[in-house]
């Protein structure tokens, strides 16, 4: 196997990966991005409504501490306050950098960046009413951001390995991460990509569910690789169901619709969020809105012949606002719901959207594990940022607009830290032939196996189990049943059949490897969801309906070995502000 060597390798060409790459490309170190798709095809491109940050455009008095308060509350108090403080305070600088790079933000009359209201936003620590803090480029903010980052990487001559797929991490005898095995999809060649710093920016894994807003490519590759290499994952029970996925198609309708004045109605035409969240109404936290929608449906007030969805009303905003502020939504709605939002409400249903959990990291992007004594230990050589990471700024529920901020701020932070570390010198033992061979075992066994089941059928079965047993509302006995079904799937997915053994642009091979990553993500989710015996944020249990701060005001940690679950403390010690103490969370 050929070896190619870099100082830093970034796996993933979405927003986080490209922001980290940009930092490193400017540093002069030899770095590369490995992306399984051409970078602008990454899922960041689908982000719509915006990037939340206290840049004080819509409100000159706005304060990053208010944004921090909202984010801590939104996380249901298991977001790490040092990380949230860092994100919210550094955020404005990161946004202005993007604007200087050319991001075509929408504008206010004063020429500043346009900001719209989003869910869970407040002024003055929840006391001053609704804030408008989400910076937007119409409803195509992710597209604008991703293309701007790609353009600036072109400018800085970043080395891209596009349509290369990383299969597994390579670790040396000391347990340090020293690169990845990767396949060049076009030729089928397998290469050891050696690196002193390996950054996972592999994104989410929404495809573990049957119904998701996520792209086909969101298959939890980073989570799979991490778990197989003995790296734990954190808070994997916390999956965000976005209130407004288009009924039937799953495609996303931005929360910005409700920010601009749209609202949800049930079969009676009632604006039901007024009952569930009297103050914030349709702009309550996403977990709260998604649960309220499901309750409306369960109580028989759903829309349509099967009463299985609700509707998002926008027509009262008028054609001009819709076409200027939400042009992409008009397009998506007409294509996928066959509904013109200028005239009729859009049928919507809560849909899997975002993985709050992931690889635990500190604010520099360094991946962490927890030792036997319960102390954090840095994993040498491995970094993570963006959706695959769990810093954790989102805790049990992410606020809308915070994912783009997360990936820009922590992609940047990882790049800055690695640049510094490289300057000081990183010494690691080379991987032995055995180390490389053992990392390549999964791929070799897939290539050599001639029997097994069809990849699409297995994937569909896995997605069905997760959808049915680990959805918006969860219950212990059902989840135990779901785990049994996953146990049955485990070996079958380990032994999935590769029906096409050719080398040139073999997407069948990639799909098999992705399926195994989906399984690792799903299993981790299932085990910790069953273990966390309380309701918090996005994790809502019918058998433990209350938040239990005495036992569960903590992160969950999942190790693949023995499927062990442990607890990890949440950080309550920000550096420059007082701790936000847990309170009852109402909107």
């Amino acid at each position, binding site marked *: 196997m050929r070896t190619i060597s870099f100082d830093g390798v970034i796996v993933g060409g979405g927003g986080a990966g490209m922001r980290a790459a940009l930092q490193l490309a400017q540093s002069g170190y030899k770095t590369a991005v490995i992306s399984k*798709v051409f970078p*602008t095809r990454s899922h960041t491109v689908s982000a719509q409504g915006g990037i939340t940050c206290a840049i004080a455009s819509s409100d000159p008095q706005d304060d990053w501490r208010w944004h921090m308060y909202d984010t801590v509350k939104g996380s249901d108090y298991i977001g790490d306050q040092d990380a949230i403080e860092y994100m919210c305070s550094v955020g404005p600088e990161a946004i202005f950098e993007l604007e200087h790079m050319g991001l075509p933000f929408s504008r206010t009359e004063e020429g500043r960046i346009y900001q719209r209201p989003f869910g869970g936003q407040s002024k003055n620590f929840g006391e001053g009413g609704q804030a408008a803090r989400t910076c937007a480029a119409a409803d195509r903010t992710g597209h604008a951001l991703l293309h701007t980052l790609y353009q600036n990487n072109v*400018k800085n001559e970043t080395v891209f390995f596009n349509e290369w797929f990383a299969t597994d991490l390579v670790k040396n005898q000391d347990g340090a991460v020293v690169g990845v095995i990767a396949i060049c999809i076009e030729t089928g060649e397998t290469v050891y990509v050696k690196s002193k710093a390996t950054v996972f920016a592999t994104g989410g894994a929404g495809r573990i569910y049957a119904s998701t807003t996520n*792209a086909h490519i969101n298959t939890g590759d980073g989570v799979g690789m991490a778990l197989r290499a003995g790296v734990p994952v954190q808070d994997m029970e916390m999956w965000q169901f976005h209130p407004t996925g288009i009924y039937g198609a799953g495609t996303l309708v931005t929360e910005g619709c409700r920010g601009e004045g749209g609202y949800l109605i049930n079969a009676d035409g009632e604006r039901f969020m007024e009952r569930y969240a009297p103050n914030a109404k349709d702009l309550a936290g996403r977990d709260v809105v998604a649960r309220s929608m499901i309750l409306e449906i369960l109580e028989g007030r759903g829309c349509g012949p099967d009463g299985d969805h609700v509707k998002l009303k926008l027509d009262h905003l008028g054609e001009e606002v819709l076409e200027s502020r939400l042009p992409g939504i008009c397009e998506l709605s007409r294509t996928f719901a066959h509904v013109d939002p200028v005239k009729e409400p859009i049928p919507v249903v809560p849909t899997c959207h975002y993985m709050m959990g992931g690889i635990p990291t500190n604010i520099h992007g360094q991946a962490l594990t927890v030792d036997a004594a319960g102390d954090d230990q840095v994993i040498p050589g491995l970094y993570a940022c963006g959706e695959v990471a769990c810093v954790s700024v989102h805790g049990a529920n992410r606020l809308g607009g915070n994912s783009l901020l997360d990936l820009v701020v922590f992609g940047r932070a990882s790049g800055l830290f690695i640049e510094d570390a490289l300057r000081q010198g990183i010494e690691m033992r080379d991987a032995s032939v055995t180390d490389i061979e053992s990392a390549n075992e999964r791929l070799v066994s897939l290539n050599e196996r001639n029997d097994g089941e069809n990849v699409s059928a297995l994937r569909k079965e896995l997605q069905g189990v997760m959808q049915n047993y680990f959805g918006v509302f969860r219950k212990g006995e059902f989840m135990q049943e779901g785990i049994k079904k996953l146990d049955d799937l485990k070996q079958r997915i380990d032994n999935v059949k590769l029906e096409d053994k050719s080398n040139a642009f073999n997407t069948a091979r990639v799909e098999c490897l992705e399926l195994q990553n989906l399984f690792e993500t799903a299993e981790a989710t299932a085990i910790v969801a069953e273990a966390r015996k309380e309701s918090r944020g996005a994790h809502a249990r019918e058998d433990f309906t209350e938040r239990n701060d005495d036992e569960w005001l903590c992160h969950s940690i999942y190790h693949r070995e023995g499927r062990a679950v442990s607890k990890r403390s949440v950080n309550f010690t920000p550096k420059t502000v007082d701790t936000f103490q847990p309170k009852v969370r109402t909107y």
Partner: protein
Amino acid sequence: MLQVSVYRFNPESDAAPQMQEYQVETGGKDLMVLDVLEMIKAEHDASVTYRRSCREGVCGSDGLNINGKNGLACITPLSDAVKKNKLVIRPLPGLPVVRDLVVDMSLFYAQYEKIEPYLQNNSPAPAIERLQTPEDRAKLDGLYECILCACCSTSCPSFWWNPDRFVGPAGLLQAYRFLADSRDQATDERLAKLDDPFSVFRCHGIQNCVNVCPKGLNPTRAIGHIRTMLLNRAA
């Protein structure tokens, strides 16, 4: 049963490309073309090869030639594409085929990179954002939304003939996106680099690009603006 004909070519085993026929049960539903490809790959033949990602028309992965017209498979409903119960799916024309429906887009990307697709402004950045009026920002509408799917450039006869020298509609749309940006200071340099007989002037206004753009953008109009700027510059 829908009759689907798919262009197949595997460089490892095929001397020449061929069309392969599949019968797909759509259950009478108005699926998207991508759904049909996914069904073929899942149920008929795992070796059928194409690109796809977002499945909602924003990532630009699945530009294909569908019943003779370039478009995105994920947002082209069968009701728009199918004629006489027949669906013919080919790779985008004019670029080398890597395998089946996957084309080598290197030339397309090279033309994009050639126009220096990034904001150029050497004045010191302010502590906040650079200000831009809503009117100036509106000039970027219809330009910045390009998803680089290559439907336009691969439908353009001028690009087929001179893919190495004619920038093509996608690249020129982005060239104008930066020329039109009030924050960009490189107008002269940008125009100088485009001022030759091929880069811009190979456009003959055929407007195939406008006809196929899945995002409803108008590269021909943008090219017209660049021509005017070039002519004014010469005058």
